[in-house]
Each structure stands twice: as C-alpha cells, then as structure tokens.
C-alpha cells in the first residue's frame, strides 16, 4: 500500500512537472531558447491566484481564470520586449536575457510581496479517499485529472488545428514556414501564450499541493520541469509528459525509500545517464549537423 501511495504521489508531482515541462519544450522547439523565465511565470501565476482570492475575495474559479489570463499576457509581453529583438543574435545572449528576465521577476516579486512565504488557500474541498492505512487527498486526484485533461487538449491543439500545424511547421524550419505563408511572429507569440497559460495551471496545482507560495518557488520547480523536458526529448510534446512523470516518480520513490535529501541528486543522475546513452532524450529526434 505504501508503494502505491508513493506512486500516486509521484504521479501528482510528475503531472505538474509535465505541465510546466510542456512550456519549456514548446518554446525550445520553436525558438531554440531555454526559457529560464518560465519558472518565474509559474510564481507570478501563483501570486495572481493568491492575490485574487485572499486580498480581493474573488471566488476560486475567477482567480484561476485571472491567473491564467495574466500569465498569458505576461508570457507574450516578455517574448515581444526581451526575446524578439534578439532573435538573430547569438543564442547565448538570448539565454542570458532569459536569465535576466527571470531575476527581474523574482526580485520584483520580493519587492512587492516580500520574501516571506504566503499560505495558499485550499481550492478543492472534496472529501479524501481512504487507501489502506493512508489517506489520499482529493487534491492529489484532482491534480492528476486536471493535468491529463490539459495535456489532451494540448495534443489536440497541436495535432489537429491550423495553429498547431503552423507551430509544428515553424519549429521544423522557420524560414521555410515563412515562405509557405505562415506568420511566424504570431506563431511564436501563440506558443509563448500557451506555454505561460499551462504554467499558470501548473502554479495553481502546485500551490494546492504544497499550500504555500514564495517569490523563489519557481526556481527549483522550473529547473526540475526543465530536466523533465530534456529527459523526454526537448521539443517533443509526448516526451515532456513522459519526462515529467518519470521525474515525479523518481523523486517520490527516492523520498519514500532512500532519503529525501538525495531526491534532487537522483533526478539529475537520471538526466545524466539518459543524456549519455541517448543524447537527444527519450523521444527526441536526432539532428545531424550538415557541413
């Protein structure tokens, strides 16, 4: 029973990682940028929901919508202001800009909300389920269900709609996509918007699970979600989902059976082993360099 409990816990954390990893993966696929600010968009989403609920007294569903809308706009703004002017410059400058944006959001949040962690209210008030000797909270099940729902929606969006087709085309070859009449700028904005919206959903699920939020909460969460994206094969959407679940399970089982301090080490260890055996990740396509 304990094993099952750990597995379900792992699935809960893993599905949050997967949602966040999708944002990293889609953005990387289309502009080849490790978007370090993604983790901090999660933090902003969490604060939006908290602000709406605790300070303005809005009902949870409005707060959630507000958080999603705010993050979407924020993600698109960051892309327009900070990343777009650098699209033609060396990749590392873009990376440093992303780090700069990330530091900016973190410090701005510390300035506005102070560095002290805040308590996040419970959103899901359903009774928990008895699982042997352990209790399985409704939040856990809700997290998994919501994540799976959003992943299905996203798969539909990317595989079946016209915008999805444009996204796939732009990530395959930007110049050719442009020649085929695809508005690449819009497509990139749209990708950032979706990624940020998913980050907001991830933020609310994460806060519901851990019941607190702080200005630096996005750093470690973002890093692990990013590891998940790389593990699954960066740029691949099913890869990000699998990667997220693997990282979540590995972390939860290490915490349960070995030592909670070693969990981070194990996560990065898995990453290194996978990258050394299959350098493009589990589901990644291999890219051959042409001379």
């Amino acid at each position, binding site marked *: 029973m304990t094993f099952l409990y750990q597995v379900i816990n792992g699935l809960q954390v893993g599905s949050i990682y997967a949602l966040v990893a999708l944002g990293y993966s889609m953005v*990387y696929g289309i502009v*080849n940028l*490790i978007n370090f600010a993604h983790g901090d968009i999660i933090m902003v989403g969490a604060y939006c929901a908290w602000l709406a609920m605790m300070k303005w007294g809005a009902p949870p569903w409005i707060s959630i919508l507000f958080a999603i809308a705010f993050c979407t706009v924020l993600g698109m703004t960051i892309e327009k202001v*900070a990343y777009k*002017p*650098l699209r033609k*410059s*060396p*990749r*590392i*400058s*873009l*990376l*440093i*800009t992303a*780090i*700069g*944006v990330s*530091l*900016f959001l*973190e*410090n*701005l949040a*510390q*300035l506005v909300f102070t560095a002290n962690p805040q308590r996040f209210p419970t959103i899901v008030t359903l009774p928990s389920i008895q699982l042997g000797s352990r209790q399985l909270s409704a939040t856990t099940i809700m997290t998994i269900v919501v994540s799976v729902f959003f992943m299905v929606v996203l798969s539909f969006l990317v595989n079946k709609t016209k915008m999805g087709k444009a996204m796939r085309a732009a990530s395959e070859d930007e110049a050719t996509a442009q020649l085929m009449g695809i508005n690449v700028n819009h497509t990139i904005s749209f990708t950032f918007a979706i990624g940020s919206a998913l980050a907001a959903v991830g933020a609310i699920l994460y806060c519901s699970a851990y019941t607190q939020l702080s200005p630096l909460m996005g*750093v470690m969460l973002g*890093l692990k979600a*990013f*590891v998940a994206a*790389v593990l699954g094969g*960066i740029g691949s959407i099913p890869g990000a989902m699998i990667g997220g679940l693997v990282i979540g399970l590995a972390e939860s089982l290490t915490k349960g059976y070995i*030592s909670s*301090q*070693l969990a*981070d*080490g194990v996560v*990065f*260890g898995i*990453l*290194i082993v996978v*990258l*050394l055996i299959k*350098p493009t990740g589990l589901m990644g396509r291999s890219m051959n*360099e042409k*001379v």
Partner: protein
Amino acid sequence: MEFRFKTRTKYLINTVAVLALYFFLMFLQGDVLTRYQSKMLIPVGIYIILAVSLNLAAGFLGQLPLGHAGFMSVGAYTAALFTKNVALPIAVSFPLGLLLGGIVAAIFGILIGLPALRLRGDYLAIITLGFSEIIRVIILNLDFTGGAFGLRGITRATDFTSVFICVVITIAVLHMLIKSRHGRAIIAIRENEIAAEATGIPTTYYKTLGFTVSAFFAGIAGGLYAHYLGILDAGTFGFMKSIEILVMVVLGGMGSMIGSVIAATGLTLLPELLRGFDNYRMVIYSLLLVVVMVFKPSGLMGTYDFSLSRSIESIINSRRRKAAKKEGVSHDSHT
C-alpha cells in the same frame, strides 16, 4: 617602418604595469578607501578569476558550461579541508591547499568533461548543470564536509596580496595559453568544430584541455573564497552561482579577457554601489542585464582584448606617421 617592441620589452612593460597596479591598489587601501571598501577588493579578485577561467570554456572554446560553481565548490572544500587537517603553518598550507584545490577541481573537470563534451550546445549546458547539482547534493550529505551545517573554522588566510597574485597568475597563464598553438586550436574549435577536426586538430583533446584548465582555476578561486569567508555552506554553490559567473562572462563579451575583468569588477561592486536604494538594487541589476543584452548582444567588449604594449606601439606609430606627414608636407613646399 612600423614600430614594434621586442618580446622581452613587452614582458618588462607588463611586469612593471602589474607591479604599479599592485602598489596603486595598496596605496588606495591605505589612504583612500574605507576598511569596508578595501575588503570588497577580495571578492572582486575572486570573481575575476572565476569569470576569466569560465571565459576560456565559454568564450574561447565556444561551449556553454553551466556548472562552474560545482568546480568552485570542489576547490573550496578541498582547500579548506586540507588547511584544517594538516599540521603545517598556514603560510605553507594555504598555497598548498589552493594548489590542491585546483588540482582536484581539474580532475573533476576531466571526469565530467570527457562524457559531457560529447554533447553539444544546450545539452552540454544541461549536463554540466546536472553534475554541479549532484556535487552539491553529495557535499550536503557527506559527514566530513559538515553536511548541511557547513564547514566552519577555516583560517581566514585570504588577503589582498594573495588574491592579487592569483589573479595575475590566472590571467597570465590563460593569456599565454590562448596566444599559443594550443590556444589557436581552441579558437578554431569555437569557430567551426567540423572544419577544425578536418584540419587535423584533436578536438576532444583540446575541448577536455580547455574544460580542465577552466575547472582548475575555478578550484583555486574556490580555495580563496573558502579562506576569505572562513565558513562554507554547500547551498551557496548552487545553480545561481554558476549563472552569476556566466552573466559576467557574457556581459563583458565572450572571448574578451578584459571584458570579463571589467564585468566581474562592475557586477561585484554594482550591488554594493546600489546599496542606497537597497530594495531596488537587484531589480535594477536584472533590468540592466536585459537592457545590455537587448542593445549589445555581443557583450560590452565584444571579442576585443586589451594589450598595453600594443596600445603604446600604436600611439608611437601614429605620432611617427604624423611627424612623417608634416615633414613630407614641408619638404614639398620647398621644392
């Protein structure tokens, strides 16, 4: 006829300049700066070593390592444990400890570099990040490193002179390495790895070499850092520390040593200078970073490198040209 210094004269000029700088800084510390301000010179020096050494791997070799803090922590713990546990006077054990820290960091550099350098670009960044996080987690879980409580009671042996000597050695060695045949091979790998391999440069060897030398100096900087603070906490060598160093390198200009030196000095002092606006300083710092990157993506200095002897040469040459021109003009008017 262009004027050129002899190589020996160049060394002489540089030695004199370094000594002059040392005495100038000593004079500043004695008379101009406050105690607190003079103390800031030590972290500035440590960050210069870190930035310049990372610039070898990032700017000259063209890789993107995100684990510099990992090597720094290895050097710091090695040096600190050595000076703590060896029954030698600190004047002897401190330099030995620094050297040992550098060597152990270099060994880690080889161990991590060999598998990691098979990957390119962002994947290399991620795998070095992973390794440095693992180093941190291991340090946190070992007993003899003090674990989560940190390593305490390290003799505070780092002073301005020792940092200054280390900075000079680092810059001199890296400069000579880059100007040598090996350095040209390293730069060739940055420019085009496939072409470099095709012309017969052993790319794996040179990539590992660059990575290892970079790790070695990071280890030395770590040793200095340990003996400056007197206490080590594995938490400080996290991902953000690596990023901080990388930011210095990129802001100064990838492949420009003077750029790294200026950026390391500026970025270490900037948060202190902004202390007046205490709450806003980190916000300003990060905004500045984004603004510089958006308007000057190649960094402040680009790939420009400063050479004192070359500057003097060009001043002398332009004067001579002017003089020659004048002479020529006056000569014409006579005939």
